[in-house]
Protein backbone atom coordinates (compact mmCIF):
# COMPACT_ATOMS: atom_id res chain seq x y z
CA UNK A 1 0.00 0.00 0.00
CA UNK A 2 2.85 2.38 0.85
CA UNK A 3 4.15 2.15 -2.69
CA UNK A 4 0.86 3.19 -4.27
CA UNK A 5 0.79 6.91 -5.16
CA UNK A 6 -2.71 7.29 -3.78
CA UNK A 7 -1.53 6.50 -0.26
CA UNK A 8 0.61 9.65 -0.40
CA UNK A 9 -2.18 11.69 -1.99
CA UNK A 10 -4.27 11.01 1.12
CA UNK A 11 -1.30 11.85 3.36
CA UNK A 12 -0.89 15.15 1.52
CA UNK A 13 -4.57 16.05 2.00
CA UNK A 14 -4.29 15.35 5.74
CA UNK A 15 -1.11 17.44 5.98
CA UNK A 16 -2.73 20.39 4.22
CA UNK A 17 -5.77 20.23 6.52
CA UNK A 18 -3.56 20.02 9.61
CA UNK A 19 -1.06 22.72 8.66
CA UNK A 20 -3.02 25.34 6.69
CA UNK A 21 -4.87 26.92 9.64
CA UNK A 22 -1.73 26.87 11.82
CA UNK A 23 0.43 28.55 9.21
CA UNK A 24 -2.27 31.06 8.37
CA UNK A 25 -3.08 31.52 12.07
CA UNK A 26 -6.65 31.84 10.90
CA UNK A 27 -9.49 30.59 13.14
CA UNK A 28 -12.12 31.19 10.47
CA UNK A 29 -10.22 29.02 8.02
CA UNK A 30 -10.00 26.37 10.74
CA UNK A 31 -13.76 26.41 11.27
CA UNK A 32 -14.41 26.12 7.55
CA UNK A 33 -11.95 23.24 7.20
CA UNK A 34 -13.44 21.59 10.28
CA UNK A 35 -16.83 21.47 8.57
CA UNK A 36 -15.17 20.20 5.39
CA UNK A 37 -13.50 17.43 7.42
CA UNK A 38 -16.88 16.46 8.92
CA UNK A 39 -18.48 16.43 5.47
CA UNK A 40 -15.63 14.33 4.07
CA UNK A 41 -15.99 11.86 6.94
CA UNK A 42 -19.75 11.56 6.45
CA UNK A 43 -19.57 11.31 2.65
CA UNK A 44 -16.64 8.84 2.55
CA UNK A 45 -18.32 6.47 4.97
CA UNK A 46 -21.67 6.82 3.23
CA UNK A 47 -19.82 5.96 0.03
CA UNK A 48 -18.91 2.54 1.46
CA UNK A 49 -22.62 1.71 1.29
CA UNK A 50 -23.67 3.85 -1.65
CA UNK A 51 -20.70 3.60 -3.97
CA UNK A 52 -19.37 0.14 -3.13
CA UNK A 53 -22.35 -2.02 -2.12
CA UNK A 54 -24.91 0.03 -4.08
CA UNK A 55 -27.23 0.61 -1.12
CA UNK A 56 -28.64 4.12 -0.62
CA UNK A 57 -28.51 5.04 3.04
CA UNK A 58 -30.73 8.08 3.48
CA UNK A 59 -30.41 8.06 7.24
CA UNK A 60 -26.64 7.87 7.64
CA UNK A 61 -26.78 10.90 9.93
CA UNK A 62 -28.15 8.65 12.69
CA UNK A 63 -24.57 7.37 13.22
CA UNK A 64 -23.28 10.90 13.68
CA UNK A 65 -26.09 11.94 16.02
CA UNK A 66 -26.08 8.79 18.12
CA UNK A 67 -22.28 8.99 18.40
CA UNK A 68 -22.67 12.57 19.57
CA UNK A 69 -25.17 11.60 22.23
CA UNK A 70 -23.13 8.70 23.58
CA UNK A 71 -19.98 10.82 23.77
CA UNK A 72 -21.67 13.85 25.37
CA UNK A 73 -23.52 11.65 27.86
CA UNK A 74 -20.44 9.66 28.87
CA UNK A 75 -18.43 12.85 29.39
CA UNK A 76 -21.11 14.95 31.07
CA UNK A 77 -22.88 12.42 33.23
CA UNK A 78 -20.24 9.72 33.69
CA UNK A 79 -17.09 11.84 33.72
CA UNK A 80 -15.27 9.93 30.96
CA UNK A 81 -12.35 11.64 29.22
CA UNK A 82 -12.92 12.76 25.59
CA UNK A 83 -10.83 10.05 23.91
CA UNK A 84 -12.52 7.18 25.75
CA UNK A 85 -16.01 8.62 25.27
CA UNK A 86 -15.50 9.21 21.53
CA UNK A 87 -14.11 5.72 21.04
CA UNK A 88 -16.97 4.20 23.02
CA UNK A 89 -19.37 6.13 20.78
CA UNK A 90 -17.72 4.61 17.69
CA UNK A 91 -17.81 1.06 19.01
CA UNK A 92 -21.32 1.36 20.43
CA UNK A 93 -22.84 2.81 17.28
CA UNK A 94 -21.02 0.27 15.09
CA UNK A 95 -22.44 -2.60 17.13
CA UNK A 96 -25.92 -1.10 17.01
CA UNK A 97 -25.59 -0.65 13.24
CA UNK A 98 -24.57 -4.29 12.82
CA UNK A 99 -27.70 -5.44 14.66
CA UNK A 100 -29.96 -3.04 12.75
CA UNK A 101 -28.21 -4.05 9.55
CA UNK A 102 -28.99 -7.72 10.04
CA UNK A 103 -32.62 -6.71 10.05
CA UNK A 104 -33.03 -4.01 7.42
CA UNK A 105 -30.45 -5.37 4.96
CA UNK A 106 -32.92 -8.07 4.00
CA UNK A 107 -34.57 -5.24 2.09
CA UNK A 108 -33.30 -3.91 -1.21
CA UNK A 109 -33.52 -0.78 -3.33
CA UNK A 110 -36.14 1.79 -2.43
CA UNK A 111 -37.37 -0.28 0.53
CA UNK A 112 -33.94 -0.28 2.10
CA UNK A 113 -33.57 3.47 1.52
CA UNK A 114 -36.92 4.09 3.22
CA UNK A 115 -36.05 1.86 6.15
CA UNK A 116 -32.87 3.85 6.78
CA UNK A 117 -34.99 6.99 7.16
CA UNK A 118 -37.18 4.98 9.51
CA UNK A 119 -34.19 4.02 11.66
CA UNK A 120 -33.15 7.68 11.93
CA UNK A 121 -36.68 8.81 12.82
CA UNK A 122 -37.14 6.00 15.34
CA UNK A 123 -33.89 6.78 17.12
CA UNK A 124 -34.72 10.48 17.13
CA UNK A 125 -38.15 9.75 18.63
CA UNK A 126 -36.56 7.48 21.22
CA UNK A 127 -33.92 10.03 22.24
CA UNK A 128 -36.52 12.83 22.39
CA UNK A 129 -38.31 10.81 25.06
CA UNK A 130 -35.28 9.42 26.87
CA UNK A 131 -34.89 11.38 30.09
CA UNK A 132 -31.28 10.41 30.95
CA UNK A 133 -30.31 12.11 27.64
CA UNK A 134 -32.35 15.22 28.37
CA UNK A 135 -35.33 14.35 26.15
CA UNK A 136 -36.17 16.95 23.55
CA UNK A 137 -34.32 19.66 25.49
CA UNK A 138 -31.00 17.94 24.91
CA UNK A 139 -27.77 17.78 26.92
CA UNK A 140 -25.34 20.55 27.85
CA UNK A 141 -21.70 20.10 28.69
CA UNK A 142 -20.07 22.27 31.32
CA UNK A 143 -17.22 24.38 29.92
CA UNK A 144 -15.12 22.95 32.75
CA UNK A 145 -14.80 19.85 30.62
CA UNK A 146 -12.52 21.85 28.31
CA UNK A 147 -10.03 22.35 31.17
CA UNK A 148 -8.26 18.97 30.88
CA UNK A 149 -7.48 19.92 27.26
CA UNK A 150 -5.89 23.22 28.28
CA UNK A 151 -8.88 25.54 28.20
CA UNK A 152 -11.49 26.29 25.52
CA UNK A 153 -9.10 27.89 23.02
CA UNK A 154 -6.71 24.98 22.96
CA UNK A 155 -9.53 22.43 23.16
CA UNK A 156 -10.96 23.73 19.89
CA UNK A 157 -7.62 23.20 18.18
CA UNK A 158 -7.34 19.69 19.62
CA UNK A 159 -10.85 18.79 18.48
CA UNK A 160 -9.98 20.14 15.05
CA UNK A 161 -6.87 17.95 14.76
CA UNK A 162 -8.81 14.93 16.00
CA UNK A 163 -11.51 15.52 13.37
CA UNK A 164 -8.85 15.82 10.68
CA UNK A 165 -7.44 12.50 11.90
CA UNK A 166 -10.91 10.92 11.71
CA UNK A 167 -11.25 12.31 8.18
CA UNK A 168 -7.86 10.81 7.25
CA UNK A 169 -8.83 7.45 8.73
CA UNK A 170 -12.09 7.57 6.74
CA UNK A 171 -10.14 8.01 3.50
CA UNK A 172 -7.71 5.22 4.41
CA UNK A 173 -10.60 2.95 5.39
CA UNK A 174 -12.26 3.54 2.01
CA UNK A 175 -8.95 2.82 0.34
CA UNK A 176 -8.17 -0.32 2.34
CA UNK A 177 -11.64 -1.76 1.75
CA UNK A 178 -11.51 -1.03 -1.97
CA UNK A 179 -8.17 -2.79 -2.31
CA UNK A 180 -9.33 -5.88 -0.42
CA UNK A 181 -11.28 -9.03 -1.12
CA UNK A 182 -14.05 -7.63 1.07
CA UNK A 183 -14.19 -4.61 -1.24
CA UNK A 184 -14.32 -6.79 -4.35
CA UNK A 185 -17.25 -8.68 -2.84
CA UNK A 186 -19.02 -5.39 -2.05
CA UNK A 187 -18.51 -4.09 -5.59
CA UNK A 188 -19.93 -7.37 -6.92
CA UNK A 189 -22.98 -6.93 -4.67
CA UNK A 190 -23.35 -3.37 -5.95
CA UNK A 191 -23.34 -4.60 -9.55
CA UNK A 192 -25.66 -7.59 -9.26
CA UNK A 193 -26.46 -8.98 -5.86
CA UNK A 194 -27.98 -12.25 -7.09
CA UNK A 195 -25.03 -13.01 -9.35
CA UNK A 196 -22.64 -12.15 -6.51
CA UNK A 197 -24.37 -14.64 -4.20
CA UNK A 198 -24.22 -17.39 -6.83
CA UNK A 199 -20.49 -16.69 -7.19
CA UNK A 200 -20.12 -17.31 -3.47
CA UNK A 201 -20.07 -13.79 -2.01
CA UNK A 202 -21.63 -13.99 1.48
CA UNK A 203 -23.90 -11.08 0.65
CA UNK A 204 -25.87 -10.74 3.86
CA UNK A 205 -22.82 -10.84 6.14
CA UNK A 206 -20.84 -8.46 3.93
CA UNK A 207 -23.69 -5.96 3.80
CA UNK A 208 -24.13 -5.99 7.57
CA UNK A 209 -20.37 -5.64 8.04
CA UNK A 210 -20.05 -2.66 5.72
CA UNK A 211 -23.13 -1.01 7.22
CA UNK A 212 -21.48 -1.39 10.62
CA UNK A 213 -18.06 -0.22 9.37
CA UNK A 214 -19.65 2.85 7.77
CA UNK A 215 -21.02 3.80 11.20
CA UNK A 216 -17.77 3.75 13.19
CA UNK A 217 -15.94 6.91 12.11
CA UNK A 218 -19.06 9.11 11.64
CA UNK A 219 -20.03 8.24 15.23
CA UNK A 220 -16.62 9.35 16.49
CA UNK A 221 -16.88 12.50 14.37
CA UNK A 222 -20.31 13.15 15.92
CA UNK A 223 -18.84 12.72 19.40
CA UNK A 224 -16.07 15.24 18.71
CA UNK A 225 -18.38 17.67 16.94
CA UNK A 226 -20.96 17.83 19.72
CA UNK A 227 -18.28 17.94 22.40
CA UNK A 228 -17.02 21.07 20.62
CA UNK A 229 -20.53 22.56 20.61
CA UNK A 230 -20.93 21.53 24.29
CA UNK A 231 -24.59 21.02 23.47
CA UNK A 232 -26.66 18.37 21.71
CA UNK A 233 -30.38 18.11 21.00
CA UNK A 234 -32.35 15.65 18.87
CA UNK A 235 -33.23 18.09 16.08
CA UNK A 236 -29.54 18.88 15.44
CA UNK A 237 -28.22 15.38 16.00
CA UNK A 238 -30.62 13.59 13.67
CA UNK A 239 -31.04 16.26 11.01
CA UNK A 240 -32.05 14.43 7.81
CA UNK A 241 -30.92 17.32 5.63
CA UNK A 242 -27.31 16.51 6.58
CA UNK A 243 -27.90 12.94 5.36
CA UNK A 244 -29.15 14.29 2.07
CA UNK A 245 -26.17 16.61 1.79
CA UNK A 246 -23.84 13.64 2.31
CA UNK A 247 -25.54 11.85 -0.61
CA UNK A 248 -25.25 14.95 -2.82
CA UNK A 249 -21.56 15.22 -1.91
CA UNK A 250 -20.79 11.58 -2.70
CA UNK A 251 -22.69 11.79 -6.00
CA UNK A 252 -21.15 15.18 -6.90
CA UNK A 253 -17.61 13.89 -6.41
CA UNK A 254 -18.26 10.47 -7.88
CA UNK A 255 -19.68 7.54 -5.94
CA UNK A 256 -17.52 4.46 -5.65
CA UNK A 257 -14.28 6.45 -5.87
CA UNK A 258 -12.26 7.57 -2.85
CA UNK A 259 -11.19 11.00 -4.11
CA UNK A 260 -14.75 11.81 -5.21
CA UNK A 261 -16.47 12.21 -1.83
CA UNK A 262 -13.50 14.20 -0.51
CA UNK A 263 -13.46 16.53 -3.50
CA UNK A 264 -17.25 16.82 -3.45
CA UNK A 265 -17.26 17.61 0.28
CA UNK A 266 -14.65 20.33 -0.09
CA UNK A 267 -16.45 21.97 -3.02
CA UNK A 268 -19.82 21.67 -1.33
CA UNK A 269 -18.51 23.25 1.87
CA UNK A 270 -17.00 26.13 -0.13
CA UNK A 271 -20.29 26.63 -1.96
CA UNK A 272 -22.22 26.47 1.28
CA UNK A 273 -19.89 28.97 2.94
CA UNK A 274 -20.30 31.34 0.02
CA UNK A 275 -24.09 31.01 0.01
CA UNK A 276 -24.32 31.53 3.77
CA UNK A 277 -22.35 34.78 3.62
CA UNK A 278 -24.19 36.14 0.61
CA UNK A 279 -27.28 38.05 1.76
CA UNK A 280 -29.59 36.97 -1.03
CA UNK A 281 -28.88 33.26 -0.78
CA UNK A 282 -28.63 32.73 2.97
CA UNK A 283 -29.73 29.17 3.83
CA UNK A 284 -30.19 28.50 0.17
CA UNK A 285 -27.78 25.58 0.07
CA UNK A 286 -30.42 22.85 0.31
CA UNK A 287 -32.20 24.18 -2.76
CA UNK A 288 -28.90 24.16 -4.63
CA UNK A 289 -28.12 20.69 -3.26
CA UNK A 290 -31.42 19.35 -4.55
CA UNK A 291 -30.90 20.85 -7.99
CA UNK A 292 -27.31 19.58 -8.07
CA UNK A 293 -28.44 16.05 -7.22
CA UNK A 294 -30.96 16.09 -10.06
CA UNK A 295 -28.42 17.35 -12.57
CA UNK A 296 -25.81 14.77 -11.48
CA UNK A 297 -28.20 11.82 -11.55
CA UNK A 298 -29.55 12.82 -14.96
CA UNK A 299 -26.43 13.97 -16.78
CA UNK A 300 -23.30 12.87 -14.93
CA UNK A 301 -23.91 9.72 -12.86
CA UNK A 302 -20.14 9.30 -12.53
CA UNK A 303 -19.83 12.71 -10.85
CA UNK A 304 -16.67 14.82 -11.04
CA UNK A 305 -14.36 11.81 -10.91
CA UNK A 306 -16.28 10.17 -13.74
CA UNK A 307 -15.67 13.28 -15.82
CA UNK A 308 -11.99 13.45 -14.80
CA UNK A 309 -11.39 9.77 -15.60
CA UNK A 310 -13.05 10.23 -18.97
CA UNK A 311 -10.86 13.21 -19.75
CA UNK A 312 -7.55 11.90 -18.37
CA UNK A 313 -7.80 8.08 -18.21
CA UNK A 314 -4.32 7.77 -16.78
CA UNK A 315 -5.35 9.61 -13.61
CA UNK A 316 -7.35 6.52 -12.68
CA UNK A 317 -4.13 4.92 -11.41
CA UNK A 318 -3.20 7.92 -9.26
CA UNK A 319 -6.52 9.23 -7.92
CA UNK A 320 -8.59 6.21 -6.91
Amino acid sequence: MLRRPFFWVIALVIAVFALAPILAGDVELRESLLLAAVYITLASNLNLMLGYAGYVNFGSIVFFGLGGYICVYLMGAQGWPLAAAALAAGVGVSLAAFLFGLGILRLRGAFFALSTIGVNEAIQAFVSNFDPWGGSAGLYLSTELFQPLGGPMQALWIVYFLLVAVMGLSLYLSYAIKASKFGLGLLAIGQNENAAAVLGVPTWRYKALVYSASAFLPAIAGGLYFFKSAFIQPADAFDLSLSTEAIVIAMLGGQGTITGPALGAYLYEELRGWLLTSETFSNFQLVIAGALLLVIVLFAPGGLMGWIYGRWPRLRKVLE
Partner: protein
Amino acid sequence: MTALLEIRGLSKSFGGVRAVDGLSFALDTGEIVGLIGPNGAGKSTLFNLINGVFAPDAGRVTFHGIDITGAAPDRVARHGLARTHQIVQPLLDMTVLENCTVGACFGRENLPLGRAREAARETAVLVGLEDRLDQRAAQLTIAGKKRLELARALSARPVLLLLDEVLAGLNPTEIDHMVGVIHRIRERGVSILIIEHLMRAIMSLSDRIIVLNSGQKLAEGTPIEVANDPAVIEAYLGDPALAEQLHRRA
Protein backbone atom coordinates in the same frame (compact mmCIF):
# COMPACT_ATOMS: atom_id res chain seq x y z
CA MET B 1 -19.62 -45.53 -3.85
CA THR B 2 -21.81 -42.53 -3.19
CA ALA B 3 -22.68 -40.24 -6.07
CA LEU B 4 -21.22 -36.73 -6.32
CA LEU B 5 -24.66 -35.18 -6.61
CA GLU B 6 -27.78 -36.93 -5.47
CA ILE B 7 -31.29 -35.57 -5.95
CA ARG B 8 -34.09 -37.34 -4.14
CA GLY B 9 -37.80 -36.58 -4.49
CA LEU B 10 -37.23 -32.91 -5.28
CA SER B 11 -40.38 -30.80 -5.74
CA LYS B 12 -41.13 -27.13 -6.23
CA SER B 13 -44.42 -25.44 -7.13
CA PHE B 14 -45.09 -21.89 -8.20
CA GLY B 15 -48.68 -20.91 -7.51
CA GLY B 16 -50.16 -24.29 -8.35
CA VAL B 17 -47.77 -25.10 -11.19
CA ARG B 18 -45.53 -28.03 -10.33
CA ALA B 19 -42.28 -26.86 -11.91
CA VAL B 20 -40.29 -29.77 -10.50
CA ASP B 21 -42.27 -32.76 -9.36
CA GLY B 22 -40.73 -35.54 -7.28
CA LEU B 23 -37.51 -35.68 -9.27
CA SER B 24 -34.70 -38.10 -8.37
CA PHE B 25 -31.39 -38.78 -10.07
CA ALA B 26 -27.67 -39.00 -9.36
CA LEU B 27 -24.47 -37.80 -10.99
CA ASP B 28 -21.10 -39.52 -10.48
CA THR B 29 -17.69 -37.91 -10.31
CA GLY B 30 -16.28 -37.20 -13.76
CA GLU B 31 -19.59 -37.56 -15.57
CA ILE B 32 -21.20 -35.17 -18.03
CA VAL B 33 -24.95 -35.48 -17.69
CA GLY B 34 -27.21 -33.73 -20.18
CA LEU B 35 -30.60 -32.39 -19.19
CA ILE B 36 -33.12 -31.94 -21.99
CA GLY B 37 -36.81 -31.36 -22.25
CA PRO B 38 -39.36 -29.01 -23.78
CA ASN B 39 -39.55 -25.39 -22.65
CA GLY B 40 -41.09 -25.18 -19.19
CA ALA B 41 -40.06 -28.72 -18.29
CA GLY B 42 -38.41 -27.41 -15.10
CA LYS B 43 -34.74 -27.57 -16.12
CA SER B 44 -33.69 -24.11 -14.97
CA THR B 45 -35.84 -24.41 -11.86
CA LEU B 46 -33.95 -27.60 -11.06
CA PHE B 47 -30.66 -25.65 -11.24
CA ASN B 48 -32.09 -22.97 -8.99
CA LEU B 49 -33.10 -25.65 -6.48
CA ILE B 50 -29.70 -27.32 -6.56
CA ASN B 51 -27.67 -24.16 -5.99
CA GLY B 52 -29.99 -22.61 -3.44
CA VAL B 53 -31.60 -19.76 -5.36
CA PHE B 54 -34.93 -21.38 -4.42
CA ALA B 55 -35.63 -23.65 -1.47
CA PRO B 56 -37.50 -26.81 -2.53
CA ASP B 57 -40.96 -27.66 -1.17
CA ALA B 58 -39.87 -31.24 -0.65
CA GLY B 59 -36.92 -33.54 -1.31
CA ARG B 60 -33.18 -33.61 -0.69
CA VAL B 61 -30.08 -32.42 -2.49
CA THR B 62 -26.89 -34.14 -1.41
CA PHE B 63 -23.51 -32.99 -2.71
CA HIS B 64 -20.32 -34.87 -1.73
CA GLY B 65 -22.42 -36.67 0.85
CA ILE B 66 -23.30 -33.29 2.44
CA ASP B 67 -26.94 -32.26 2.65
CA ILE B 68 -27.16 -28.86 0.89
CA THR B 69 -30.96 -28.73 0.61
CA GLY B 70 -32.07 -25.12 0.91
CA ALA B 71 -28.57 -23.82 1.71
CA ALA B 72 -27.93 -20.24 0.53
CA PRO B 73 -26.27 -19.87 -2.91
CA ASP B 74 -23.00 -18.56 -1.45
CA ARG B 75 -22.70 -21.60 0.84
CA VAL B 76 -23.37 -23.95 -2.05
CA ALA B 77 -20.68 -22.16 -4.08
CA ARG B 78 -18.18 -22.69 -1.25
CA HIS B 79 -18.84 -26.43 -1.40
CA GLY B 80 -17.51 -26.43 -4.97
CA LEU B 81 -20.65 -26.17 -7.03
CA ALA B 82 -20.60 -23.42 -9.66
CA ARG B 83 -23.16 -22.49 -12.30
CA THR B 84 -23.82 -20.32 -15.31
CA HIS B 85 -27.10 -18.55 -16.03
CA GLN B 86 -29.27 -18.99 -19.08
CA ILE B 87 -29.66 -15.20 -19.17
CA VAL B 88 -26.12 -13.97 -18.61
CA GLN B 89 -25.50 -12.06 -15.38
CA PRO B 90 -22.20 -10.23 -15.85
CA LEU B 91 -21.03 -7.64 -13.31
CA LEU B 92 -21.31 -4.99 -16.01
CA ASP B 93 -19.12 -2.20 -14.69
CA MET B 94 -16.29 -4.52 -13.73
CA THR B 95 -13.62 -5.80 -16.10
CA VAL B 96 -13.47 -9.35 -17.41
CA LEU B 97 -10.58 -10.06 -15.06
CA GLU B 98 -12.44 -8.61 -12.05
CA ASN B 99 -15.53 -10.66 -12.88
CA CYS B 100 -13.46 -13.84 -12.89
CA THR B 101 -11.57 -12.75 -9.77
CA VAL B 102 -14.86 -12.58 -7.87
CA GLY B 103 -15.50 -16.19 -8.86
CA ALA B 104 -12.02 -17.27 -7.77
CA CYS B 105 -12.08 -15.31 -4.50
CA PHE B 106 -15.35 -16.65 -3.21
CA GLY B 107 -15.36 -20.10 -4.77
CA ARG B 108 -14.35 -23.47 -3.42
CA GLU B 109 -10.75 -22.57 -2.64
CA ASN B 110 -11.58 -19.22 -1.06
CA LEU B 111 -8.39 -17.76 -2.54
CA PRO B 112 -6.74 -14.53 -1.36
CA LEU B 113 -6.96 -11.64 -3.83
CA GLY B 114 -3.55 -12.05 -5.47
CA ARG B 115 -3.83 -15.77 -6.16
CA ALA B 116 -7.46 -15.32 -7.17
CA ARG B 117 -6.31 -12.91 -9.88
CA GLU B 118 -3.91 -15.53 -11.24
CA ALA B 119 -6.59 -18.21 -11.25
CA ALA B 120 -8.96 -15.76 -12.95
CA ARG B 121 -6.43 -14.96 -15.67
CA GLU B 122 -5.86 -18.66 -16.29
CA THR B 123 -9.55 -19.47 -16.78
CA ALA B 124 -10.10 -16.36 -18.91
CA VAL B 125 -7.38 -17.71 -21.20
CA LEU B 126 -8.98 -21.17 -21.19
CA VAL B 127 -12.28 -19.82 -22.57
CA GLY B 128 -10.52 -17.52 -25.04
CA LEU B 129 -10.97 -14.13 -23.38
CA GLU B 130 -7.24 -13.41 -23.00
CA ASP B 131 -7.47 -10.30 -25.22
CA ARG B 132 -10.33 -8.83 -23.26
CA LEU B 133 -9.07 -9.02 -19.68
CA ASP B 134 -9.23 -5.27 -19.04
CA GLN B 135 -12.43 -4.64 -20.93
CA ARG B 136 -15.60 -3.86 -19.03
CA ALA B 137 -18.05 -6.76 -19.15
CA ALA B 138 -20.70 -4.42 -20.57
CA GLN B 139 -18.61 -3.99 -23.72
CA LEU B 140 -18.53 -7.71 -24.57
CA THR B 141 -20.63 -9.25 -27.33
CA ILE B 142 -23.22 -11.88 -26.43
CA ALA B 143 -20.73 -14.63 -27.26
CA GLY B 144 -18.16 -12.85 -25.09
CA LYS B 145 -20.61 -12.58 -22.20
CA LYS B 146 -21.40 -16.30 -22.50
CA ARG B 147 -17.71 -17.10 -22.30
CA LEU B 148 -17.35 -14.77 -19.34
CA GLU B 149 -20.23 -16.53 -17.59
CA LEU B 150 -18.37 -19.81 -18.04
CA ALA B 151 -14.95 -18.41 -17.12
CA ARG B 152 -16.32 -16.88 -13.95
CA ALA B 153 -17.94 -20.12 -12.83
CA LEU B 154 -14.77 -22.00 -13.68
CA SER B 155 -12.54 -19.58 -11.76
CA ALA B 156 -14.08 -20.93 -8.58
CA ARG B 157 -12.36 -24.25 -9.42
CA PRO B 158 -15.58 -26.15 -8.88
CA VAL B 159 -16.03 -29.89 -8.51
CA LEU B 160 -19.36 -29.73 -10.30
CA LEU B 161 -20.41 -27.22 -12.93
CA LEU B 162 -24.04 -26.53 -13.84
CA LEU B 163 -24.22 -25.14 -17.38
CA ASP B 164 -27.52 -23.55 -18.37
CA GLU B 165 -27.69 -23.19 -22.17
CA VAL B 166 -24.19 -21.83 -22.69
CA LEU B 167 -24.53 -22.51 -26.44
CA ALA B 168 -27.83 -20.71 -27.02
CA GLY B 169 -27.49 -17.64 -29.23
CA LEU B 170 -24.03 -18.53 -30.54
CA ASN B 171 -23.11 -18.97 -34.20
CA PRO B 172 -21.69 -22.33 -35.46
CA THR B 173 -18.04 -21.27 -35.12
CA GLU B 174 -18.62 -20.02 -31.58
CA ILE B 175 -20.47 -23.24 -30.75
CA ASP B 176 -17.55 -25.37 -31.92
CA HIS B 177 -15.21 -23.28 -29.82
CA MET B 178 -17.44 -23.55 -26.75
CA VAL B 179 -17.85 -27.34 -27.15
CA GLY B 180 -14.04 -27.57 -27.27
CA VAL B 181 -13.83 -25.56 -24.05
CA ILE B 182 -16.33 -27.84 -22.33
CA HIS B 183 -14.26 -30.88 -23.33
CA ARG B 184 -11.16 -29.24 -21.86
CA ILE B 185 -13.02 -28.47 -18.64
CA ARG B 186 -13.94 -32.13 -18.34
CA GLU B 187 -10.33 -33.18 -18.88
CA ARG B 188 -9.55 -31.21 -15.72
CA GLY B 189 -11.77 -33.61 -13.80
CA VAL B 190 -14.76 -31.29 -13.40
CA SER B 191 -18.14 -33.03 -13.48
CA ILE B 192 -20.82 -31.28 -15.50
CA LEU B 193 -24.61 -31.11 -15.51
CA ILE B 194 -25.64 -29.37 -18.70
CA ILE B 195 -28.96 -28.01 -19.99
CA GLU B 196 -28.99 -27.58 -23.74
CA HIS B 197 -31.50 -27.40 -26.55
CA LEU B 198 -28.95 -27.95 -29.27
CA MET B 199 -29.23 -31.70 -29.89
CA ARG B 200 -26.07 -32.09 -31.93
CA ALA B 201 -24.00 -30.66 -29.10
CA ILE B 202 -25.66 -32.33 -26.15
CA MET B 203 -25.72 -35.76 -27.77
CA SER B 204 -21.99 -35.61 -28.41
CA LEU B 205 -21.04 -34.08 -25.06
CA SER B 206 -23.10 -36.15 -22.64
CA ASP B 207 -22.27 -39.54 -21.15
CA ARG B 208 -25.85 -39.82 -20.02
CA ILE B 209 -29.00 -37.88 -20.70
CA ILE B 210 -32.01 -37.19 -18.49
CA VAL B 211 -35.22 -36.07 -20.19
CA LEU B 212 -37.57 -33.87 -18.18
CA ASN B 213 -41.20 -33.20 -18.97
CA SER B 214 -43.59 -31.24 -16.74
CA GLY B 215 -41.10 -31.42 -13.91
CA GLN B 216 -40.85 -35.20 -13.99
CA LYS B 217 -38.24 -37.56 -15.32
CA LEU B 218 -39.46 -38.94 -18.62
CA ALA B 219 -36.41 -40.99 -19.56
CA GLU B 220 -32.79 -41.56 -18.64
CA GLY B 221 -29.97 -43.32 -20.47
CA THR B 222 -27.16 -43.00 -22.99
CA PRO B 223 -27.78 -40.50 -25.80
CA ILE B 224 -28.74 -43.30 -28.20
CA GLU B 225 -31.11 -44.99 -25.77
CA VAL B 226 -32.84 -41.72 -25.04
CA ALA B 227 -33.17 -40.76 -28.69
CA ASN B 228 -34.88 -44.08 -29.42
CA ASP B 229 -37.22 -43.95 -26.45
CA PRO B 230 -40.82 -43.74 -27.71
CA ALA B 231 -41.89 -41.68 -24.69
CA VAL B 232 -39.25 -39.08 -25.49
CA ILE B 233 -40.25 -38.88 -29.13
CA GLU B 234 -43.83 -38.55 -27.99
CA ALA B 235 -42.97 -35.66 -25.67
CA TYR B 236 -41.15 -33.88 -28.44
CA LEU B 237 -43.92 -34.39 -30.98
CA GLY B 238 -45.27 -30.98 -30.04
CA ASP B 239 -42.03 -29.78 -31.57
CA PRO B 240 -41.69 -31.73 -34.85
CA ALA B 241 -38.35 -30.22 -35.76
CA LEU B 242 -36.79 -31.44 -32.52
CA ALA B 243 -38.26 -34.92 -32.92
CA GLU B 244 -36.84 -34.98 -36.41
CA GLN B 245 -33.42 -33.97 -35.13
CA LEU B 246 -33.52 -36.63 -32.43
CA HIS B 247 -34.24 -39.24 -35.05
CA ARG B 248 -31.43 -38.17 -37.26
CA ARG B 249 -28.94 -38.39 -34.39
CA ALA B 250 -30.09 -41.90 -33.54
